[in-house]
């Protein structure tokens, strides 16, 4: 029975697949799908190095503090950071008093609700509070940045590339030398959007956030170029997405060392048997 019906079922699926394949090939030959602007002009993130790359990489606390400052002065106007608590900033090397002060002076206040009177109000943030929600008056919904580095292909490299990738669409050419607006006249960026070849569909709603050198004043004397600020905030957002990165790698090496020793012992035990 199996030997009779088996080949029949197999041939049934094979013929159906051949039919799909034939239709697909016919369509591809008669009406080939034209390449899209996104396909030809979307850029992969720039290959830049970060201190936390690789199995030995760790966060650079000074860089994270600078990145936090960029977030505080620029990004936090529109983007929330709800998974992170003020107390977590102690991991960046801030003292307890500094964390308290940062929380207390944070622009958006913690929301309160009194169940007895029904009154809503606000109070200064405490270190135990998470970063408060951000009210955004414009159109759209700026994404929460807590996990942005882990939720995009390329992570920190992508953030850096996006922040430094804004460019004039007129005359923009890709690496193959094709000019976008000549090849796709319809692909002109609509009003209210901004052209950026590192963004998946080339046009994004966020205007260029880091526009000029010195936009943020670093307290450690580092020169705040746009490139420097974008690297710092990319590092900071990697920390917000993966705060345990250092601990994870520090734990990993002893674990692997122990397992290596145990495996060698197991191998010797096996040879012995």
């Amino acid at each position: 029975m199996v030997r009779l019906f088996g080949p029949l079922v197999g041939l049934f699926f094979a013929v159906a697949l051949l039919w799909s394949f034939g239709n697909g090939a016919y369509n591809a030959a008669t009406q080939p799908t034209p390449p899209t602007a996104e396909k030809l002009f979307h850029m992969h993130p720039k290959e830049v190095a970060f201190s936390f790359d690789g199995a030995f990489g760790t966060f650079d606390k000074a860089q994270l503090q600078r990145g936090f400052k960029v977030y505080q002065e620029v990004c936090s106007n529109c983007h929330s950071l709800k998974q992170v608590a003020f107390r977590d900033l102690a991991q960046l090397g801030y003292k307890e008093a500094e964390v308290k002060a940062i929380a207390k002076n944070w622009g958006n206040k913690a929301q309160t609700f009194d169940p007895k009177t029904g009154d809503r109000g606000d109070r200064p943030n405490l270190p135990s509070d998470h970063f408060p929600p951000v009210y955004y008056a414009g159109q759209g919904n700026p994404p929460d940045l807590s996990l942005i580095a882990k939720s995009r292909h390329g992570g920190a490299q992508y953030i850096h590339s996006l922040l430094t990738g804004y460019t004039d669409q007129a005359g923009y050419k890709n690496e193959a030398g094709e000019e976008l607006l000549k090849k796709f006249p319809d692909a002109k960026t609509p009003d209210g959007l901004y052209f950026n070849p590192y963004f998946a569909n080339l046009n994004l709603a966020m205007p260029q956030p880091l526009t000029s050198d010195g936009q943020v004043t670093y307290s450690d004397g580092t020169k705040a170029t746009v490139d420097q600020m974008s690297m710092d905030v990319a590092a900071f957002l990697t920390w917000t997405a993966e705060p345990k990165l250092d601990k994870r790698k520090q734990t990993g090496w002893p674990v692997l060392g122990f397992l290596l020793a145990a495996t060698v012992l197991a191998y010797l035990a096996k040879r012995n048997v």
Partner: protein
Amino acid sequence: MSFPWANEYKPTNPLMQWVDNRLPLPRFVYNAVGAGYPVPRNLNYMWNFGVLAGFALVLQIVTGVVLAMHYAANAGVAFDSVEHIMRDVNWGWMLRYAHANGASMFFIVVYTHIFRGFFYSSYKAPREMIWLLGVVIFLLMMATAFMGYVLPWGQMSFWGAKVITGLFSAIPLVGTPLQQWLLGGFAPDNAALNRFFSLHFLLPFVILGVIILHVWALHIPGSSNPTGVEVKQESDTVPFHPYYTAKDGFGLGIFLMVYCALVFFAPNLLGHPDNYIPANPLSTPAHIVPEWYFWPFYAILRAFTSDFMFIPAKLMGVLAMFSAILVWFFLPWLDTSPVRSGHYRPLFRKFFYLLVVDVLVLGYCGGAPAEEPYVMISQIASMYYFLHFLVILPIVSSVETPQPLPFSITEAVLGKDEHATLAPATPAVA
């Protein structure tokens, strides 16, 4: 059942004798995975993967039970509760990464175990029942892994749930009501999340039960071996303990090193970034892809792009995807060659390696976006997949001339010397 020369459990400690007389559990373990289980002496490292799969299941249960203590199965807070585990639960990040990558390791091990079975025809008589139970375990694993992936309630969780339950909507007449019944709504939401969590907690224990049957069935004929020649005499076997406990211990060490390298240094390598975006029913991801271990089957599902006769393409894809696994149930009767091991089957061996490449190609296409040339490649590869099991295998097994088999396992190991072939012939009890 065992061979007559198996060691017998003889406790010397009076306490163990007392226990053995009342509940012979130590005797049971001794006979199952101890010195009382005679195993062919020629097993290679491919025979480590059964034990490793069992270990991976235990790892998943242990990490999973602890994760469940901190996770909240509610669509409103599930995503944040996972982030709470990652940030505020002591060592929570390690537990979660261990659980997520543990699933990947479980599948790597089980796929190797299954392909070991293909190459050495481990499914042939008298081991059909072991094989059938193994396919059941694999199906249960797929269901469990799918539901587990939904729990973090990220974008891929939500849309994966929508796509996979959508498969049932391809069934004529009852399809759409069936999908709504499975989800408890028109789209994945709190009801779906809650039942998936409940089932994700339950199914591993069902798997454990089927594994017990799988191992029980294994102990009836005993383990197969790389020559495919049955055990004939005492010199063909060695006791499981210490010979294979030691070998498995070494294999386990290698397994754990690969696993820990993933957990500690590349925990998100095998995941998809979109699952760190909270589920949003109003925003469809550009490419919905399942976890890597479903990619070969996902490629088969998507390979059917045209309606065939009166059958809609979607239904064809669903039928083919399920058939791709169900066909394994029939393997013992599709491959009728009397020779088991691929070592002695030159033609079969060539097609086996072709199948390995084919499944890897399918996996690659399943992870790629649904556009050309991946669709056409996966159509060709799916075609080979079905032809291999249902047409090529029966033909090969009837036309092929196998190479001569060794007389016994001992001869295969020690060569054809007098000592090996003239060993006192103890009749094996079948």
